[in-house]
């Protein structure tokens, strides 16, 4: 029997049981969709992280914080176990260490920024503008205005998302405008609001990412001296250290030297280590999703097998007729496998399409998580954009996988069909 005839016979058999074939296919669709969504998001993420490597994560920097754990957010800094304080002027100690280019202290506090009638909660960051711009020369860059390297106390630099929070051109505040910065001092009783007027000197260009200690679209920057007097502290949240180079040995020796200098009371984290942690988290998530995909494909496969065994019984007589007409066992086998191939291919095609849609929906939910709506904590993540990527390899792989699963699980029923004896099959009621 010709291959084309085998396929058209198999196709006719499938068409007869549309609902059943549809449900069988659905199992494959779900499994393939999960895999495709997963892969295209992961690939998109990899691209995003790759970009971050060049912007948010300078690989030749270290972050020094107190030994109370690494905090990406100010909230993580609250729990105090020791009396050790990381002071702003400790940068002088760090600058002395070999292979250190320069270091900059960062003070981060939640605060409000008010322009006109509107007010937003965000993170106020105090840094030395000159040094900060030196370390983050690619991201701490003005789109409008100038980042003064010798700023007045009132100078304020704002992230792109604070200038244009809704991403639609509705400007919240702009260069040369006056904004009110408010901080709630909770150490006094009752808590007291402190406010001062700042002058927006620059709006940063869009960074579109997340970084550790690095500039962010959702921060407000004020000079470190102003931060010290405004918040009434000399303690900083972290000191960012720029190294001469990003060799592993340099990173290690400087980290050790810094820890030693502060008697082991500080925590030194390299950007590389953070990246490693993030990619570990991602691969865990990936593994988890891959597990789900694998299980759904397994279930799909069992569904195919189950349905084929049922249809085998229904079609026993048909098989008997085919054999009486002189059809060979291997042709009967081919017909049943072709049915599985058709189901697998249709399932894969639909699965790739729906997986792609799913990936884009997930990416949009991730990316579009409103900046101001969820407050400043979510804002950091809100800046991260994932664009799902669908490579030809993924498409081919999905087809191959859909085919493989359906054919493997069809093997047994198809083999049983092919082994039926013509007389027995014809006698079957």
């Amino acid at each position: 029997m010709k291959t084309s005839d085998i396929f058209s016979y198999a196709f006719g058999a499938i068409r007869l049981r549309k609902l059943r074939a549809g449900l069988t296919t659905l199992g494959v669709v779900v499994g393939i969709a999960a895999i495709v969504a997963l892969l295209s998001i992961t690939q998109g993420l990899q691209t995003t992280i790759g970009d971050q490597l060049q912007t948010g994560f300078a690989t030749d920097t270290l972050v020094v914080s107190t030994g109370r754990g690494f905090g990406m957010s100010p909230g993580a800094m609250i729990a105090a176990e020791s009396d050790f304080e990381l002071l702003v002027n400790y940068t002088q100690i760090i600058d002395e260490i070999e292979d250190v280019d320069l270091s900059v202290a960062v003070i981060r506090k939640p605060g409000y920024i008010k322009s006109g009638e509107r007010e937003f909660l965000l993170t106020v960051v105090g840094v030395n503008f000159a040094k900060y711009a030196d370390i983050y020369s690619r991201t701490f860059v003005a789109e409008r205005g100038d980042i003064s390297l010798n700023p007045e106390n009132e100078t304020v630099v704002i992230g792109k998302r604070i200038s244009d929070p809704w991403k639609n051109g509705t400007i919240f505040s702009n260069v040369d405008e006056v904004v009110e910065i408010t901080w709630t001092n909770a150490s006094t009783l009752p808590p007291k609001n402190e406010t001062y007027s700042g002058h927006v000197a620059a709006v940063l260009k869009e960074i579109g990412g997340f970084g550790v200690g690095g500039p962010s679209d959702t921060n407000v920057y004020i000079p470190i001296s102003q931060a010290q007097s405004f918040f009434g502290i000399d303690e900083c949240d972290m000191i960012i250290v720029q190294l001469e180079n990003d060799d592993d040995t340099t990173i290690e020796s400087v980290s050790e030297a810094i820890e030693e200098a502060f008697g082991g009371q500080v925590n030194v984290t390299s950007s590389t280590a953070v990246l490693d942690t993030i990619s570990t988290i991602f691969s865990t998530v990936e593994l988890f999703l891959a597990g789900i995909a694998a299980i759904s494909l397994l279930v799909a496969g069992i569904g195919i097998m189950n349905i084929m065994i049922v249809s085998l019984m229904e079609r026993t007589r048909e098989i008997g007729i085919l054999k009486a007409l002189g059809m060979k066992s291997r042709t009967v086998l081919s017909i049943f496998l072709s049915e599985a191939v058709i189901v697998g291919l249709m399932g894969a095609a639909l699965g790739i399409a729906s997986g792609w849609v799913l990936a884009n929906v997930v990416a949009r939910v991730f990316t579009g998580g409103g900046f101001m709506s969820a407050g400043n904590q979510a804002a950091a993540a809100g800046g991260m954009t994932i664009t799902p990527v669908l490579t030809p390899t993924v498409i081919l792989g999905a087809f191959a996988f859909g085919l493989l699963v359906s054919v493997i699980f069809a093997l047994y029923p198809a083999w049983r069909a092919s082994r039926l004896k013509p007389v027995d099959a014809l006698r079957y009621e």
Partner: protein
Amino acid sequence: MATPIVETVNLRKTYMLGKVPVEALQGVNLKVEKGDFLAILGPSGSGKSTLLNMIGALDKPTEGKVFIEGVDASTLSDNALADARRKIGFVFQFFNLIPRLTARGNVELTMTIPGLGRDKRRERAEELLETVGLKDRMDHKPAELSGGERQRVAIARALANNPKFLLMDEPTGNIDSKTAREIVELVKKLNEDKGVTIIVVTHDQQIASQTRRTVLMIDGSIVEEKVN
């Protein structure tokens, strides 16, 4: 004399019903020459269908031999048996058409199996359906046809690959007597005009009287042979 088209030598078939052996055939010797029209008669359970299945290479004997055009079927592999069946036309009591295919589709399927091209098989299917008088019913599915019409489709299908002989197992068993007479006429004409060799199992005296030869089976043996 030429080799008979079908010859059975001391053919035995024993079914095991649990531990009880059922001897369906107990040493059947039968010769069918080319162009013959043979009726096999006998009471229910006498082994007629069993004999037909052996001759048609649908089943293997327990003992004895079946020669199809001189070739011992018991020596053939499964694949070779499948090939042999392509040259045998079967007509069953319950039609055994494929329900989802049209009359034409059913006839074409027989020619699809040996790999005949689309145009050729279409042409031949239409020709055959015309021969059995179903010119206007070609695109009907079995469910849309009467019993007699279905059996005609089955006969057209059986003839599709130019078989060496036709095997019919109670072809009129499920058809009213008037239609049965028409089917008998058709079969008789195939034998007389086209020289098709036919072996038919039947209860129907009316068919038996039209054949060239009848054999009577009782309890798995041929007990009587008669030339009409």
